[in-house]
């Protein structure tokens, strides 16, 4: 609690000091007032995913796209969809082009990352973000946000992979104690829940699959008596 309070105060101080778009302030205010004791069905989530040029922002890898959709009352809301490609500030590695089929020609008319991130924040507001192996995505988003605005994301973030491990711990405690929890890939979880993935693999499609997985995880955790946001943050939050 104390760390949380200190972090919040530090963020607020920076927010006052910096000349950032208003959306940063509104997001922060909403996150600050987030009621974690609320039932999970009463919480607004944004499920998201990103595509990048590589694995490490510190080595110059950058965001290529962000896909996200709304998730409220246990329902995936396709009317609340976000999917934008980003004009990269560096040359895209050949391997990355092959993975994402985003050629330099396609990229030149796109918005710069700073514009896309502001629109993404406007889309998310103070909602709890959900992703799969989210630490990776948050690292890239925060790197870009810090570069252009001097501030990281204020939002709380859940990771479906961490939640999956949490569920495994409650369902197979003995196995986890001996072998450790397994590393759940998105494809593995989708397959185990019999979720048919879209034909295209991109940020939006993966966000949609993540949302469907999160839906199942909610149902599973509710069976275990975990139905409040704080229960989910406890086992699946990315700090």
């Amino acid at each position, binding site marked *: 609690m104390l760390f949380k309070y200190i972090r919040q105060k530090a963020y607020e101080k920076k927010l006052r000091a910096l000349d950032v778009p208003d959306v940063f302030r509104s997001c922060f205010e909403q996150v600050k007032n987030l009621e974690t004791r609320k039932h999970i069905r009463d919480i607004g989530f944004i499920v998201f995913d990103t595509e990048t040029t590589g694995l490490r922002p510190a080595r110059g890898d950058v965001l290529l796209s962000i896909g996200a959709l709304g998730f409220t009352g246990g329902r995936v809301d*396709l009317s*609340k969809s976000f999917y*934008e490609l980003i004009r990269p500030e560096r040359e895209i590695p050949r391997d990355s082009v092959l993975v994402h089929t985003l050629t330099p020609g396609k990229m030149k008319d796109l918005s710069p990352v700073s514009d896309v991130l502001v629109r993404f924040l406007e889309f998310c507001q103070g909602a709890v973000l959900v992703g799969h192996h989210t630490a990776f995505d948050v690292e890239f988003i925060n790197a870009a946000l810090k570069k252009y605005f001097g501030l990281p994301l204020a939002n709380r973030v859940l990771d479906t992979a961490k939640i999956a491990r949490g569920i495994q711990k409650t369902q197979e405690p003995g196995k986890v104690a001996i072998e450790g929890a397994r590393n759940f890939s998105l494809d593995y979880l989708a397959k185990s829940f019999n979720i048919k993935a879209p034909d295209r693999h991109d940020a939006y499609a993966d966000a949609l699959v993540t949302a469907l997985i999160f839906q199942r995880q909610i149902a599973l955790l509710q069976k275990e008596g975990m139905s409040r946001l704080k229960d989910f943050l406890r086992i699946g939050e990315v700090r």
Partner: protein
Amino acid sequence: MPVEATASAGYNAVSRKQHYSVTLFLCACLITTHVSHVNHMMELPLDKVMAFLKAVCPFSELPEPVLKGIVRTLLIEYFPEGEVILSAGPVDNAFLYLVSSGVTHCFKKDGAKVTTLRYVSERDHFGSETILTGRCRYTVQVVEDTICYLLKPEVFKELEGRFDGFRQYFQTINSPLSVQIAEHIAFREKSSLQQLPGRVNETSSQFKTSIGMLVSREPVCCGLKTTASEIARIMAFSGVGSVIVAEKETPLGIVTKNDLTAKVLARGRKSDIPASEIMSKNLLSLDRNDSCFEASLRMVENHCHHMVVTKEDRLYGVISQHDLILLQGANPVAVVGSIYKQKDVAGIKKCVRDMSIVQEVLLREGGRMPQIWALMSTFRDTLTRRLIVLAIEEMRKRGKELPVLNFCWITFGTPGRKETLLRENYLEGFIYKDPQGGLKDETVDYLKTLCAMVKDGLVECGLLDRKHGQVLCLSESKWREWFDGLMAGETPLDADNLRTFDFRGVCEEGKTVEELRQYVFEAARHKPRFLNQLRMRTNPTLIPVCFYRDQVVSSGTKRETLNLRDEVLTPLVGVVRLMALERGIMAFSTIERLRALCELGAIDGEKGKDLETGYEWFVRHCLQKALYEKRPLDWAVEPGKLSPDERRLYVESFRLVRDFVAGSEEE
């Protein structure tokens, strides 16, 4: 395909402007924060959702731009096994639930009694009535983990307002079964039915073309006193083959080229003989708005080639068999004419193929089953009569003359109800008046030989089962004894014997059979024990309840296939027959019997209409499937091959028949 073309396939044509306004509306359903981003947005990879929506009726008929808009308004919800999605009663948060995966159970609960309505699985939907009425009539509970796409009520209402077909579809779902089936047939006829193999699109439908359309000129008329030579001149001058004999625009008869040949030239009569002496007086007439099928049927039944067309009861024109043949390649009149010309069984057998072609054509053209049954019954009767004539001629060649007897051929079972589809029958009969002093041995031999010859002919033509088919040749008194034995329980009342209560005469002179029918129906209604035995034979629990995925559910068991005839149609026909016998209703067909029962107040009018439509639709659907899949009609229904709408109609029809059969059991 252009947007307009797609829309008009299933819906009233909507202008391009309307389409765009719908799309814009649907886009407006996206969240407001998002609208400002539209320019930056990439196309969403919702291909799977789009493909799903395209497979769900009635969305499958909406234009693609509208569908794309709808996809972006959907919610996706997951329901684990056991969860109740909707409860009976008022519903605050209404949606249309489109099932993407899983199975839900729709049921009504009355105290401890749970009545299954249906199981809803992939590509089907539920909940429309919650949007339309704000209430749910049943409870929906998840049987297998289910994922649903939820259509928001505001989007539903918008689509309803914009697309008449969409509105009609959901209105129909909540209508009586007869309306649902009629709408379903109309909808199918616009789409898949037209893709049946062998369809000749150029030909006009006999059901939709009025005979007035075939009249190309004013009728050529003459007076009663016009001479034969004058009539011949009129024909030559006008280029027609028939002249109407009329007085003050009232048609009295017709003189055809055949009449001039057969009644004047062949008999060596003078050419000044007046029209009144050579004209055919049994003039058929129909109103110009009647269908060409009706004209064909009347010509077939009355063995004539011309028909007068009237407009407000006044002479309008003349149509001939030739006109109908030009309209439609396979013409019923031509088929019957062909049967009359055949000199042997092999020739008649070829006619059966033509009959089947006519049946297929009528089915493709959207013909109703009562019409098809009526025509096929006439075909079958004509064929049987021709076989009898050929048999008599053969006997004559052998030096044996037909004894002076009042006789008639009887057909039993499905053809006995005038519901034949030209399939193998199991029992035919021959009835003759009891001669005074009994029959001579040689007469008995003659009749036995005659029956055997007709039987062989029917077997050869595929209208009597080769192995089990039999022809009973009995006198009127013996037939009465036969039925008395059945009603007294001396002969066991198995399914075959039950069918003998559906019988009728096939020959022109059918008085003997009519007297027998009256005797049987009169006797049956006064035999409560017999009627009770019939009632005991009905078992509503054998009738399927619903489908579960690709399986049929009945009495707690699940099976892969269903035999529609044995499990649904036979119980229905049986109960209708029983009710007809109880009330002395002499109608032949199940549909006629149902109508008579409604008139008597034995069945509620709406229920009777639903049963009638359901019965007809079951037969029509099976027949169409067999035709489409190019296989013999075997009445097997594979649930996996039914569309969600067909499954819904099947299940509702099952329930209707089950309730009806159960109701009769309680009586």
